């Protein structure tokens, strides 16, 4: 999976609410109906990168089972970033389609 894709997926997942790393992998797989299998090992560096960029924020908190986990949440700038990326992603299918059409 492309790095940019994973970033956007993480941001999109967190847009639904704060979540820990394990939860993020679960949810991405759920939403994409297991089509997109997250390479679990590459999730964490991505989270760190997003946090350094100021798009997400992390804090320790308790899970439903009352275990301590590091929860990630979207920052205001993260939301903006997500919107920008969404826009370019939504334009992509059209662009790809036009290229395919032109080739036919």
């Amino acid at each position, binding site marked *: 999976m492309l790095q940019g894709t994973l970033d956007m997926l993480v941001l999109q997942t967190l847009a639904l609410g704060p979540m820990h790393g394990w939860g993020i992998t679960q949810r991405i797989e759920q939403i994409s109906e297991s089509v997109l299998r997250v*390479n*679990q090992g590459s999730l964490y560096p991505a989270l760190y990168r997003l946090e*350094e960029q100021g798009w997400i924020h992390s804090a320790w908190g308790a899970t439903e089972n009352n275990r301590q986990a590091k929860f990630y949440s979207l920052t205001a700038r993260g939301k*903006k970033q997500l919107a920008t990326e969404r826009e370019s992603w939504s334009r992509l299918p059209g662009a790809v389609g036009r290229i395919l059409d032109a080739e036919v």
Partner: protein
Amino acid sequence: MPKFEEDMERELRFHLDEAAAEFMRAGMAPQAAYAAAERRLGRRELIKDECRDTRRNIMLETTLRDLRYGVRVLFKNPGFTLAAVLTLAAGIGANTAIFSVVYGVLLRPLPYAQGSDLVVLHQKTATADELRFSVPEINGYREGNKTLTSVVEHHSMVFLLLGKNIAERVQTAVVSANFFSVLGVEPKYGRTFVADDEKPGSDAVLVLSHNYWLTRHGGDPSIVGKVFQMNSRAHTVIGVLPPIPQYPQESDVYMPTSQCPTRSSARFQQNRNGRMMTVFGRMKPGATLAEAQADLSAQAGRMAQAYPESYPRERQYGIVARGLRDELTEKAEPLLLVLLAVTGFVLLIACANVANLLLARLLRVERELAVRTALGASRWRLVRQLLAEGVLLSLAGGVLGVVMAPLALRALVSFTERFTTRAAEVSIDTPVLVFSLILAVVTGLLFSLVPALAVSRLQQGAGRQTGSRSRGRLRASLVVAQVAVSFVLLVGAGLMVRSFQKLRSERPGFRPEQLLTMRVTPNFYRYQGREALDVLWQRVLHKVAEVPGVAAVATTANAPFDPAGIASGPNNTEFQIEGRPVSPGTLAPTVDITGVSAGYFATIGQPLLAGREFTERDDNAALKVAVINDTLARHRWPGEDPVGRRITFDAGRTWIQIAGVAGDVKEYGLDRPAGDEIYLPIRQAGFSGILIVRTAGEPLRMAAAVRRGLAEVDSELAVDRVSTIARFQEESMAPAKLTAMLLGLFAGLALVMSMSGLAAVMALAVSQRTQELGIRLALGAPRGSVLQLVTWQGMAMTLAGLAIGVAGSLMLTRFLAHLLYATSATDIVTFIGAGALFLIVAGVACVVPAWRVMGIDPVAAIRQE
């Protein structure tokens, strides 16, 4: 484990636990579930490495990007960059120079082995603070203490070095053999003294000081073994010292005690009251100064009990132990701390100035910032860029400052030399450079913090209007702070100048112009006894009087303003007045005695108020006479005529009749009020040594002719310290003058900086308000009143700053009080003068930028976007 590592570990562990739990719910055995979860996650160490790299790369990348951006911005604004770097260079350079002196004098360990264990001993009495020690006393303290490993003695003598073309006076330190080993000084060449050198009858040996070896013997590396003819005796050079600060005074050569005729005489060695030596010692490792003090005081008590006749109870004999470092730097310390504070203030002003320049620039790029913020640049990111820019600026300023500091250092060192011998150790070396580097970085962070705060407010504030208004307030408060601090510095400098003026306007009590002076030292081996010396001085006086151009000549033991006299101070000799016996258990009055030749008062122009002055007939066979000064006359014979009264210095064995009363002379410096003074004729009182010649023309031009006359009397007379009394007087005021100049220099620098800050803020305000001012003009406001309006804005800042500055000065100038002469630390004239000067300069700094109002075209201004 660092927090980052710990968090990472906990986070991955949580992931594994959850993943394994998932597998277990699917029916796997725990062990297999963990294995599967681990496979699914990947190797944890690799993940961690990647996380670490990610973080490191991002940090490094952004830092580099910030720095690159900063460099680009600075090069894009060369005017701004130049102004900021120069301001910072001045601030950091001044601090570097002063700190290098503070470090070399106050902080650097003494260049002696374990210098902090060295203590100086002083005896004190009810009337004298720094009494020296006699041989029995030294032995008493050496044997009767428990806290010192060794006790060392020192006294100084004058020797003549003969065998060259002219006789040379050599300042000689006579020391105990353990002197250098206790200090821990290793010779540069040869050896220092060993115990055998101190035995009676041992060969005469010399150790040369580094400076004397360098200046008088050309740094000859093969000097060890050479033989010097000193006072008719052969002395062999055995060693040369390294460059070290010499305690208690700078000497040319060192000799062991056995070579001093006085010190080695049996009679002197037994005389408990022959107090001639300075003493210091080394404390045992671990002993504290307080312990040494208590131990030595106990020994002093034992000696006072054993020899009550040497330590009369009413004199309150005691002993004081002080650290050698404190002793060496005691005069320099308060002054250096004042200078350090002053340059610290200058740097603060420089910081405020650069912060203001940054703010002004920020205003111009406000739109760019707004755009970047809208595009999602984080506030932290902008702040970081500003900080990077600030640190770049201050590092550039720091480098330039450190390069400039040595230019000021020479002058600063020669200034410091007047207060401490440690000045020779001052240099800009690693600790000083580290200090400057830290200073530069802290400075950079400090002044970029202000605009950084402004940026964060820019983001929080809703509209552009509030942002720029609050920044206007920020700029104004920076200017107010600058004005306040530079006013404090101006008042400080003003007080020093005023103190110097007061000092300068003191009347010395004689006519110092056209007085040539020189020190004349005979070979004492050839003039033994008072008679021989009397004959010599009479011949000298007659011979010099014959030299064409000499109006009058006299000799004295201490010329007015003589640096040596100022250093040693009055000699506080006890005397008794006839008919007023000193009752047992009380202290006898003391007085300063100076031996002078016939015609001395006429020569220097010291007026005689009553009686007569000395003539050649006042010789040893005649009636013993004295001249006293006005202070003593009024002090001891108020409302009476002291002429004809008698006094004695030896409990009535010899009576001396007062022959005259002379006016007061401030011979120990203009800052010291005249004390009780008695002059005795040298033909009766013995030794003098300083020749004073009143010349018809320029005094120093007569020096050669006078010296030729002296050589005709005796070619072995050593002549040195040829100068004029007027120069001595100037020299005695030099510390006050230089301090005033130095503080004035820094205050001037502060004034220029803060006024350029004010002018810059005014210029910005005018350009920002062009539109508003244009509307005012269009509506018919006279240009004069608009100008007034703008100028008033600047003057309001100045007045606010002055008000704070006055309060600050009232609080701070008391730290200058001990440096001031006849000037109160809250001297009203200085405060008013400094305030007036400030207002004038500030007025110019406000009006010049405000003048642009006169050129505003109302129509163009209103049309402006």
